[in-house]
């Protein structure tokens, strides 16, 4: 099958390209890109076996790579399966997901990894890469057989949601992994500093009387792990950084030449601890200091880009996530870190849960957000507010993640695997968690209007998601007006 994606705006951060043009896909690969001046030479393309996809007004970009996905299979198929999780990924524009090892059995030996990969080959909609456990049973004590795990296909190591409390174990893990050229992904949480925590330690937590998870509990751990990475020369990857202090530590380490990378989630970039207040955030506004939270922001086109915590009831368990939603200063520092490249990638930390895991008292609710399907719409908020350039943002979803994995960045270069996402950066849509493909309906954005929606996702040259009959009307003339105010530094 051949596809000809016409009239879209091609964004390919790896090639530093942002241009109107057409993309030809043949035999699962991108074979040609036509820019505006070359469109006349397209005449020979159209034939019986070519499907034309009209992408006018939309962005055509390399498919996103998610470094941090909890697929739950095997062991917790009531929360998610490889099939539902990867289809949710396709709906979110992701064409590669890295599966965290907190499965049952856990991904701590080659035979398990091979078995899950085999299952994934059969049932997944997008590429699934495996993250091996750092320690047996993720218990933080004995190292897994890392060399064999890499041979079995693991592309990174992580104890998924559990900090490695013993620094000697972490040192050994980093040293051992350093010969393998794969990152050790660390969950930074000093659990002696946040015992019994329910949310971020800050003003909202004080008002709500919820036990706090102070920023220092993350920062202390990041500092420790950076020291160990510096000593061993290994590649340390910081999962879901959420604090201003954490960003500063990573910035300093990078300046010193430590091999450290970092990811941030869409929710930590855009939501604050005030979301736990829910409707009570309304009167809290009168006291809130001016800051990163754009409570009544409008974009250049005058459209509302407001994310509104007051649509939630107070103590909505869907706002409970680890690390917790942080303060405004933290959110501002994360955005700044992402913009400046201190934070390399956006990762979903997709954490689907069953309804019963969340329909309980706040402090008892399972942590996590089912985030794949809202990720793009949420991070585009930064673009609409003028806080981030669209090309840079897409880079953090594509080449940023690829570089962490030591891969050539996904790209629309001729010859590249046809992992492609087409999205409308402007399309407003109302989040309705009941329509999620993911089995996890746990997402605090239910009822919010996001702007920016995935229209079509192609993985390895096959269409794995298409919104209604997107792109089938090929007769429309090209239109570029939607780009106004979106692309701020076309390169």
């Amino acid at each position, binding site marked *: 099958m051949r596809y000809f994606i016409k009239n879209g705006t091609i964004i390919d951060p790896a090639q530093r390209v942002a241009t109107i043009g057409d993309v030809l896909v043949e035999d699962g690969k991108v074979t040609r890109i036509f820019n505006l001046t070359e469109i006349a030479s397209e005449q020979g393309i159209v034939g019986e076996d070519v499907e034309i996809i009209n992408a006018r007004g939309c962005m055509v970009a390399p498919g996103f790579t998610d470094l941090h996905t909890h697929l739950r299979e095997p062991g917790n198929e009531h929360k998610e399966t490889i099939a539902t999780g990867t289809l949710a990924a396709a709906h979110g524009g992701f064409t590669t997901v890295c599966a965290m090892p907190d499965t049952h059995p856990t991904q701590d030996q080659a035979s398990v990894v091979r078995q899950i990969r085999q299952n994934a080959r059969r049932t997944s909609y997008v590429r699934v890469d495996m993250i091996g456990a750092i320690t047996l049973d993720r218990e933080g004590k004995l190292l897994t057989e890392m060399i064999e795990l890499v041979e079995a296909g693991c592309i990174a190591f992580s104890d998924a949601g559990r900090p490695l409390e013993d620094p000697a174990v972490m040192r050994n893990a980093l040293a051992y992994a350093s010969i393998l050229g794969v990152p050790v992904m660390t969950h930074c949480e000093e659990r002696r500093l946040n015992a019994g925590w329910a949310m971020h330690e800050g003003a909202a937590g004080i008002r709500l009387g919820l036990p706090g998870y102070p920023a220092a509990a993350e920062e202390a751990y990041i500092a420790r792990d950076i020291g160990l990475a510096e000593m061993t020369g290994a590649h340390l990857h910081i999962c879901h950084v959420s604090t201003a202090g954490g960003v500063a530590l990573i910035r300093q380490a990078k300046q010193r030449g430590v091999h450290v990378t970092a990811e941030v989630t869409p929710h930590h970039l855009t939501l604050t601890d005030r979301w736990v207040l829910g409707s009570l955030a309304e009167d809290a506004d009168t006291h809130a200091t001016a800051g990163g939270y754009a409570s009544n922001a409008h974009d250049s086109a005058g459209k509302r880009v407001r994310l509104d915590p007051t649509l939630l009831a107070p103590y909505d368990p869907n706002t409970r996530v680890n690390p917790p939603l942080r303060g405004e200063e933290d959110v501002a520092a994360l955005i700044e870190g992402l913009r400046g490249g201190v934070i390399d990638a956006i990762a979903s930390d997709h954490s689907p849960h069953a309804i019963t895991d969340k*329909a*309980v008292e706040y402090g008892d609710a399972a942590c996590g957000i089912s985030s794949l399907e809202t990720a793009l719409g949420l991070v585009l908020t930064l673009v609409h507010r003028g806080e981030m350039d669209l090309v840079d943002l897409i880079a953090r979803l594509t080449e940023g993640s690829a570089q962490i994995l030591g891969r050539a960045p996904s790209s629309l270069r001729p010859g590249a695997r046809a992992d492609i996402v087409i999205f409308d950066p402007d399309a407003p849509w109302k989040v309705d968690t009941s329509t999620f493909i993911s089995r996890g309906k746990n997402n605090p954005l239910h009822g919010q209007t996001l702007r920016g929606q995935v229209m079509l996702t192609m993985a390895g040259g096959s269409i794995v998601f298409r919104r209604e009959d997107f792109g089938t009307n090929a007769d429309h003339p090209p239109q570029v007006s939607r780009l106004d105010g979106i692309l701020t530094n076309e390169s």
Partner: protein
Amino acid sequence: MATQTRVSHRHVLDLDIFSQNEIEEMLDTADSMKEILSREIKQVPTLRGRTVVNMFYEDSTRTRISFELAARALSANVVNFTARGSSVEKGESLIDTVRTLQALGADIIVIRHKQSGAPYLVAQHFAGAVLNAGDGWHAHPTQALLDLFTIREQLGHIEGCKVVIVGDILHSRVARSNIWGLTKMRARVTLCAPPTLIGPTRFWKANWPELDIIYDLDAALEGADVVMALRLQKERQQSGLLPSLREYNRYFALTAERLAELGDDVLVMHPGPMNEGVEIMPEVAVAPQSVIETQVTNGVAMRMALLYRLAS
């Protein structure tokens, strides 16, 4: 299920959404209720035929009995439910328990729970009214209202009074609800606690900019009209938040010496239960300035006023 996200005035979950006028109305209603309680027959038919369920997920003496007496004085059917010995021990969730109580015909749920926010969860799944009888560290609105009632009754006014709250502020729902109530009534509120029992002060100021926070109790007490001591759980010392109860008592307790400094007109309050000899000395608890027992008595009138409000 479509749920209401705005906190409805159908419930009383905290004083944060009360206006000064609404609080005054409640205090006036409690005045009438107190009059009823002084009659020979301490019962009126206001809630006849209504069912009040006291859901207590945490141990309590005075609040539970106070609510029970208040509901009976209004002629309501009262059912007491404790987590212990119920289906909660078989793993029934809070939401399912509430639905069951609703199916059984409950009109008003009074809930005490160790988790902050639990009454909000109940309110979302219950068609009747919910009264928060204390949730975690978060709120204890009936206690705060009875404290306001007691201050107004004893001093004649609340506005302009200097109220010092001393003790384990961080873990105290009584402190939080009193801060809401007192600041809305334009009292001047000073908090006093060792830093480990209040946490970063900027987080308190972000919510209530008008608060004074002072670590030195003697300085905090200067010019106080009311001083409220909070219960100190002895586990706080064991978990490392305090060096010793002896040091706590010396620097943060209401002692006879401090009371003498404060003079005869000060009000000494305590929400109970007390740890005598820890946060308050026994002789202070029974001193003429102490209104601790009056608080308990007023609690019944205040809770009658709240049940009356929710039923109408």
